[in-house]
């Protein structure tokens, strides 16, 4: 009797994945490089945009935005958060993280929203995409770091790409769900008044699915933030680096400061993006 199942049957899933990765790297180097260059351009551009403005200009802008979108209490919270971040000396890292989150979210939404729409309109697309999304969401996020690092090396580009993959599913799912949940009679109303299928999408389905779509966008941004911290392990930089350094040096204080910066950023992003999900009136 074999004591170990593996001695009887050995399916080399690990090696297969490795050789697949090798093949991609050898044969698709050109497209991969082009893609990496595009992502790099976006990530660098956003980062320098946020860093070129001094904190005494950017912070008031963020505070004013928080006040306008949510309310004066939240504006006050933003003021305190900005002050503490600057006082901890983490302004630069926070902006780097913010740039990564924004860059990854833009890419995730640019791909995710159309994909969600396609899923809603064609059952066939939905059948194919749904298991892929399940896979993407249940895989532990660290796993994405490995292929991202293999294909794109270390730095912001693989960090952004791993983040995109991790953060995209909610935008796809909730867009699909939102459109499918538009009531039958509303769709019929659109058609009965002579909508073409494009008009139906833009004038009826998307507007009525908007609360759900906005919830998906919010979740994608929040996931992007959590992944960006993890992605600092492959050199994405930002607040994740601060936390990582804290862990490596067993420096509780530094780790906590980095963590606090992430929490502030999370609360600010969450409330401000949610404020767009509520229907605006009388404008």
């Amino acid at each position: 009797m074999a004591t170990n199942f593996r001695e009887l049957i050995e399916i080399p899933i690990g090696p297969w994945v490795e050789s697949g990765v090798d093949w991609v790297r050898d044969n698709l180097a050109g497209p991969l490089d082009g893609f990496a260059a595009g992502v790099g351009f976006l990530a660098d551009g956003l980062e320098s945009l946020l860093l070129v403005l001094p904190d005494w200009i950017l912070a008031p802008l963020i505070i004013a935005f928080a006040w306008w979108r949510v309310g004066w209490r939240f504006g006050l919270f933003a003021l305190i958060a900005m002050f503490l971040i600057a006082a901890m000396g983490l302004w630069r890292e926070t902006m780097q993280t913010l740039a990564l989150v924004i860059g990854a979210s833009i890419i995730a939404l640019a791909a995710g929203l159309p994909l969600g729409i396609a899923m809603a309109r064609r059952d066939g697309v939905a059948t194919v995409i749904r298991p892929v999304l399940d896979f993407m969401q249940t895989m532990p996020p660290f796993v994405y770091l490995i292929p991202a690092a293999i294909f794109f090396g270390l730095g912001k580009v693989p960090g952004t790409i791993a983040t995109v993959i991790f953060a995209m599913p909610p935008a796809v799912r909730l867009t699909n769900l939102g459109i499918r949940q538009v009531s039958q009679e509303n769709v019929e109303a659109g058609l009965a008044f002579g909508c073409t299928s494009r008009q139906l999408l833009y004038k009826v389905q998307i507007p009525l699915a908007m609360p759900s779509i906005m919830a998906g966008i919010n979740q994608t941004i929040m996931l992007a933030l959590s992944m960006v911290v993890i992605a600092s392990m492959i050199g994405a930089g930002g607040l994740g680096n601060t936390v990582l350094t804290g862990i490596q040096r067993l420096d509780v204080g530094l780790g906590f400061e980095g963590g606090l910066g992430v929490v502030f950023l999370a609360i600010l992003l969450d409330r401000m993006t949610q404020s767009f999900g509520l229907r605006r009136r009388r404008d």
Partner: protein
Amino acid sequence: MSAKITVENLYKVFGPDPDEGMRLLEQGLDKGAIFEKTGNTVGVRDASFSIEEGEIFVVMGLSGSGKSTIVRMLNRLIDATAGRVLIDDRDVNALSRNELIELRRRDMSMVFQSFALMPHKTVLQNAAFGLEVAGVDQETREERANKAIEQVGLKANARSYPDELSGGMQQRVGLARALAVDPSIMLMDEAFSALDPLIRTEMQDELVALQREHRRTIVFISHDLDEAMRIGDRIGIMEGGSVVQVGTPEEIVSNPANEYVRSFFYGVDVTRVYNAADIADRRQVTVLERPGVSMRSALERLYAGSRDLAVVLDRDQKYLGTVTAESLAAQIDGAGEPRYADAFVTDVEPVDATTPLAEVVARSASNRLPLPVIDEQGLYVGSITRAAVLRTLDRSGE
């Protein structure tokens, strides 16, 4: 009158294999058996009828009888499995995609049970929806939408959002949206079913009033008989996907095609279906007032027939008055030249032919003499006895 919409042998089978369903229908299987055997649902089965230009045609039937399916085949929100729908003699099923969109934009609009308004648009923008879709420029469409909003009495709310309005007001917006495109046909699927009873009758009356202003062909779905009677020029009754009877409310009430149709009218308030002319008869003695025919001979006719009442008409059948044997005798025996006019009983007022039965009932209760019925020219139509009223009322409780 010409047919605006003609439905010919229309079928709809839902499910995995509609053709199989059609084959079994041909073999004479019924809806239940076909579903059991194949999982296909027969929505509409061999429906044929036509709807005249300018009439309100009510489709009535129990839940699941195929009402929604049949109206949706008129504008092809649902594609028919077999049969034809002709609108102005054009076969809807044969239209190309673009022709169909054109037809929906120009000729037909729809009002929904759940209102189906766009929550992110104002009342005005909602009313302008059909025009917006058709590519009408903003200024024109707002002008036309404003007019429609005014027609339904919502002018003050043009800038409100739907969720700021009551259900009745929301459906007015739905109605305005349908009116704004100025269609010749309006399809209304249980349009008033979600409204509470008071608002509901108000909307029904309003629809009839709008129809008086500008006649359109309206296909109105309802499962409420009172509603059907109130607004319908004609009613089509559906049972299990088939149209079992088409006719005016009176025709259907007085001559139901089968038990199913009869069951609909069980307990129906006939006082709203019938009017005075429907139950008047000409069995009363009538006498003509003309020179040379003496009142005495009239009295003798009454005695001979042991009747005690006569209706007096002029030569053109115009109603003059009612006399009783008593009043005739008193007049003949009295002093001076006897005249019919002096013998008329004063407590009998003629009723108009179009008076609803409900009102007739009230009047006959306070008057023991038969009520004469006259038409709009004042001509005698017949009389209504209390017995006739009671007989009609009794029939509704069968």
